[in-house]
């Protein structure tokens, strides 16, 4: 196990983190290759920030091991000090030093090398974040987005083994978050930085991460790329937390079909359950199409205009509610009954 840990940039093996008697992160296992960007995604209080702080060295761990670039940095009773880990951190509120200029902030962590080398590194980073002329300015003179880029440059300046980002977009305008997330992703990829992002916003996670760990109650429920989390959630929590959708009662027919109130649902990839089993099937809004020819009728409870499409909340005759996406030129009023039918899915997500 440890030989593998040594070849990876960041590896957590069976890590537990506790505050006193209360274990807030349990049995955490994951590993990142150099340059990989991971995201810990979960609701507030799920333990994701605590885990990040444990990687940074601000919290001790009570079980397991943390490896960083072939070096064991945390084990029970053994915590390498944060300043000796070479881990960069981007904070929620950026935590720029208000008494230092932008260049002073970026150069703060540079210790080795001549002053000319330091100046060159600072200039290089200012260039990288697109603030080449802002070196002499002070943090309070910059916009939120610029402050964030300076904080990023400051964290990257000492060439850390890994970069940790703690809800880095939460103090910025909602509209700009995804764009900034993509910009930062491009920048990290260009620099080949291994990074762990913590967020509760799945759009940020999707925009930025190669691989996402969905966390709840201190555990990682599922670890994988965004596509898998959306289309093949491992459990009900992940199914509900990622994307929209509802779970409908269903009975399996054969390897490729189940029957529900919506009729038969079929997929291109077989499931492995015998027929006649009662299950729940996950139905995403994009799985349901508006179809006047369909015998299945649904009452429109609510609709949300989203530009390109409408998101309808529908009630089926049994009382179950489903969501449906419809192109925005198909307009129906709340209280209308419309026909709906299910599209063929790639894979049926079933829960027993």
């Amino acid at each position, binding site marked *: 196990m440890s030989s593998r840990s040594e070849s990876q940039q960041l590896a957590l093996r069976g890590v537990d983190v506790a505050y006193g008697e209360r274990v807030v992160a*349990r049995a955490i296992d994951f590993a990142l290759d150099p340059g990989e960007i991971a995201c810990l995604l979960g609701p507030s209080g799920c333990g994701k920030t605590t885990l990040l702080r444990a990687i*940074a060295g601000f919290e001790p761990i009570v079980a397991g091991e943390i490896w960083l670039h072939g070096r064991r940095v945390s084990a029970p009773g053994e915590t390498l*000090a*944060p300043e000796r880990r070479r881990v*960069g951190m981007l*904070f929620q509120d950026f*935590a720029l*030093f208000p008494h230092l200029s932008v260049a002073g902030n970026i150069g703060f962590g540079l210790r080795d090398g001549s002053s000319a080398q330091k100046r060159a590194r600072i200039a290089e980073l200012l260039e990288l974040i697109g603030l080449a002329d802002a070196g002499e300015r002070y943090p309070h003179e910059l916009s939120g987005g610029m402050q964030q880029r300076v*904080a990023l440059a400051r964290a990257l300046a000492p060439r850390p083994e890994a970069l940790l980002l703690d809800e880095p977009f939460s103090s910025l305008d909602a509209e700009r978050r995804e764009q900034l997330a993509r910009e930062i992703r491009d920048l990290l990829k260009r620099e080949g930085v291994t990074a762990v992002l913590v967020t509760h916003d799945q759009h940020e996670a999707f925009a930025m991460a190669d691989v996402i760990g969905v966390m709840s109650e201190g555990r990682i429920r599922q670890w994988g790329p965004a596509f898998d989390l959306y289309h093949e959630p491992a459990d009900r929590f992940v199914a509900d937390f990622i994307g929209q959708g509802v779970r409908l009662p269903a009975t399996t027919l054969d390897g490729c079909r189940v029957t529900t109130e919506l009729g038969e649902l079929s997929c291109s990839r077989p499931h492995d359950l015998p027929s006649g089993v009662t299950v729940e099937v996950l139905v995403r809004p994009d799985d349901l199409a508006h179809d006047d020819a369909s015998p299945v009728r649904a009452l429109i409870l609510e609709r949300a205009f989203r530009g390109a499409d409408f998101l309808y909340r529908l009630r089926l005759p049994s009382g179950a509610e489903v969501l449906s996406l419809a192109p925005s030129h198909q307009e129906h009023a709340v209280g209308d009954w419309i026909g709906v039918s299910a599209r063929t899915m790639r894979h049926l997500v079933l*829960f027993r």
Partner: protein
Amino acid sequence: MEVALSHRPSAAAPPSSRRALWRRPGFAPGLLIGALALLLALPVLVVLGSVLRPAGEVWRHLATTVLPDYVANSLILMLGVGIGTLLIGVGTAWLTTLCRFPGRRLFEWALLLPMAMPAYLIAYTYTGLLDYAGPVQTLLRDWTGWSYGDYWFPAIRSLPGAMLMLSLVLYPYVYLLARAAFLSQSVAVLEVGRTLGQGPWGTFWRVALPLARPAIVAGVTLALMETLADYGTVQYFGVATFSTGIFRVWLGQDEPVAAAQLAALLLVFVLTLILIERGSRRRARYHHSGQRHQPIRRYPLRGWAAFGALLVCLLPLLLGFLVPAGQLAVWSWSRAATGFDARFLSLTLNSLGLAGAAALLALVVALILAYAQRLVPTPLVRSSARLAGMGYAVPGAVIAIGVMLPLAWLDNALDGWMRSTFGLSTGLLFSGTLFALLFAYLARFLSVALQTVESGLTRIRPAMDEAARSLGQRPAQVLWRVHVPLLRGSLLTALLLVFVDVIKELPATLALRPFNFDTLAVRAYELASDERLADAGPAALTIVLAGLVPVVLLSRSIARSRHVQSI
């Protein structure tokens, strides 16, 4: 398929709970901090501990003769000063915050000026003004043609005189806290009072005053603590209180243990006041919470009412600062040729050096204690910091005896040991030198610096520390590269406050200074005691000028907050 959730405590319980106390993180630094705190609290602990030592005869003698006087005088003095500061402080605070009249904005900060005047100095100036040979009585005689014995004139050097002097310089404590309380009261509450049929006067009595009561009580208790701590005024006026009693028993009768026991009794008074103050502050906080701040609509005063308000605010300022400061200036001017000589220069240098050293020392210790609480926030470290700040509100006379007793014991032990082993005498290595004085200042004024540094440090978010740590800085480097630059303002304020407090301090300096080492305060006291009041002018005026510095800082913070209040 559903993952089972369990909230059972982990099989491997966190080791910190099982580990022995001394192996937990932060134990060793905690112990060091605890030792430091214990050292700083030593004077108070020695005084409290002295109760356990038998003093027999002396104590019985004290109890039957002078002790009832000390208690009675101290209580009457507190009662008088309590009423005086209450009336002046609340009245001026209410007028300047809730009414509009000419000069209001000036009075808002000028009413703080008497804080710069130490009580013993105002006592000297009024003695000079109102004594038989003073300008007031001389003028009276010139006008009326009376001579000595023809008329009655109130004696300023008396218990009522001391009440007046202390009230005039201590009311700003009440003014400051009452003012803050009035400002924080929601306008809505006051307006509800008006709509329910109360006039402005009725609103004040039935709404504003009861709401501000906790803050006012806190202000009065602060003034009373200063009253108990006062030595110079009561000594000069010949009023026997605890402070003068401690010195008389200690230095006059050479009974340090009995003096310490007297000091312990005084501490009980002080502790009672501290408890009252803490309690009312807690309630004051409760009252202020959750109210949206709205600018106060001040009640405009016109005609005689405006004139009355002006007079009410002008009198304390005039009597508490302008008149005594003017008198000191006149005395200094009369001694301009002779008063500012080499002797005066050396006094000033002594005061400055001593105050500077004490302030730096207090700052370093405060920084250590405050920073330790941030790095190792264990109960041990937290309570240590509180213990170290205990000297706050402890009268200088109490600190002095508390410093002298252990240091004298240490000197004797060291001297005896050196004599027997090396055959040489070290003499009074600690108790007879500046060491004792600096120790006393540190014990007494550390909390001033500690509170300032702590409040500055809490404004620096923990993310700052973590950012610096993750950029490869050790805790000491974080302190130096992040905290110290960010704390510059607070550190300077702490330095200044201790500096000025030391310059003004009289009783501990008087008791602990090395032989032939004089400061401005000591010299002013000695000259006044020799009835050479005018000669005391230059030293006294210098002390007042130094005392103005923190008052200016305070009034600047009031001016800064003004945009919130003005309509």
